[in-house]
């Protein structure tokens, strides 16, 4: 049996249209990674990616990507989604995500699609999503407490395993809720 190898991409949606110089009660980190309001569904994400791949790579590119492109998981609350794509062509999809500059809905907000993890199995990607959510909570707490640069923030941006080990991870009870909502998979 020939194995069809895939790659799973964990993608964050980072919002960039924040008014500058505003110091509100919400830390900046949470403003950049805010939940997605509006009609974002897996089908709209797929449509947006397919049209961008067609623009960048033409008929040949969109044909190679079409079979195996799928949104495996979408969470609008955390603005995160997991894509599945065949191993040979995942870079086309990654490049298309880089060129997309707004949400693929009508009058979509300007945003950045940031690929934070590529893995061959979905389990590792899920673990990474949970890890990043924990780090985001810790970094936001640090920012609210007024620390200029925190270990959690560095760990979030650099993805070091060492810096994560140094953190005393608070035992939180809401990490299970992360993966339950918005679970999308092929029927």
């Amino acid at each position, binding site marked *: 049996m020939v194995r069809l190898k895939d790659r799973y991409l964990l993608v964050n949606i980072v919002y960039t249209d924040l008014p500058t110089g505003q110091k509100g009660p919400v830390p900046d980190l949470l403003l950049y990674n805010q939940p997605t309001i509006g009609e974002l569904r897996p089908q709209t994400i797929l449509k947006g990616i397919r049209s961008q791949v067609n623009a960048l790579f*033409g008929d040949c590119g969109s044909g190679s990507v079409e079979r195996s492109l799928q949104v495996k998981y979408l969470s609008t609350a955390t603005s995160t989604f997991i894509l599945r794509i065949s191993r040979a062509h995942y870079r086309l999809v990654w490049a298309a995500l880089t060129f997309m500059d707004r949400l693929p809905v009508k009058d979509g907000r300007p945003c950045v699609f940031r690929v934070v993890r590529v893995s061959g199995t979905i389990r590792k990607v899920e673990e990474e999503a949970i890890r990043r959510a924990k780090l985001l909570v810790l970094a936001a707490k640090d920012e609210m407490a007024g620390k200029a640069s925190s270990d959690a923030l560095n760990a979030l941006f650099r993805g070091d395993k060492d810096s994560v080990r140094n953190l005393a991870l608070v035992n939180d009870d809401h990490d299970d809720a992360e993966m339950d909502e918005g679970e999308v998979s092929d029927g």
Partner: protein
Amino acid sequence: MDLDPPTNPSSSTPKTPKSQTLSQTTIRSPPFSYAHLSLVTPSSSSQLDTLTARHYLTAALRQFLGDTGASMAIDMLLVKGAECWVRVPREDLAGFAAAVTAYPGHKVGGGEEEEMLMRVVGCGDWLGALVGREGEGEVWG
């Protein structure tokens, strides 16, 4: 009866040294590939010019390979009559040939109904071999 002893080879006239190889090189991956394209249109009196050919190739590449194809580095070497010779980077030759072959042609001349279609006569890594093939059709009928 004594047989003559065999003549000593070292006393014979010195032989000329065999040819020696001074240097040897193998060209594995030439940087460019070449293609020979030809116009296929119903009207026999069609002349190709460089801009028309360039525009056609860009449209064909854009449809097949998108923006990355339209930005492919194509050099127009010679455009003569209904033929044109182009040069592309070697790694792009497969995509280029496929794009030109797959393109269904387009209309030129703004308002006139003249269809323009080009086909690939030959392509390869070596321009000399490609040019040499030009008279092949006439030789073999």
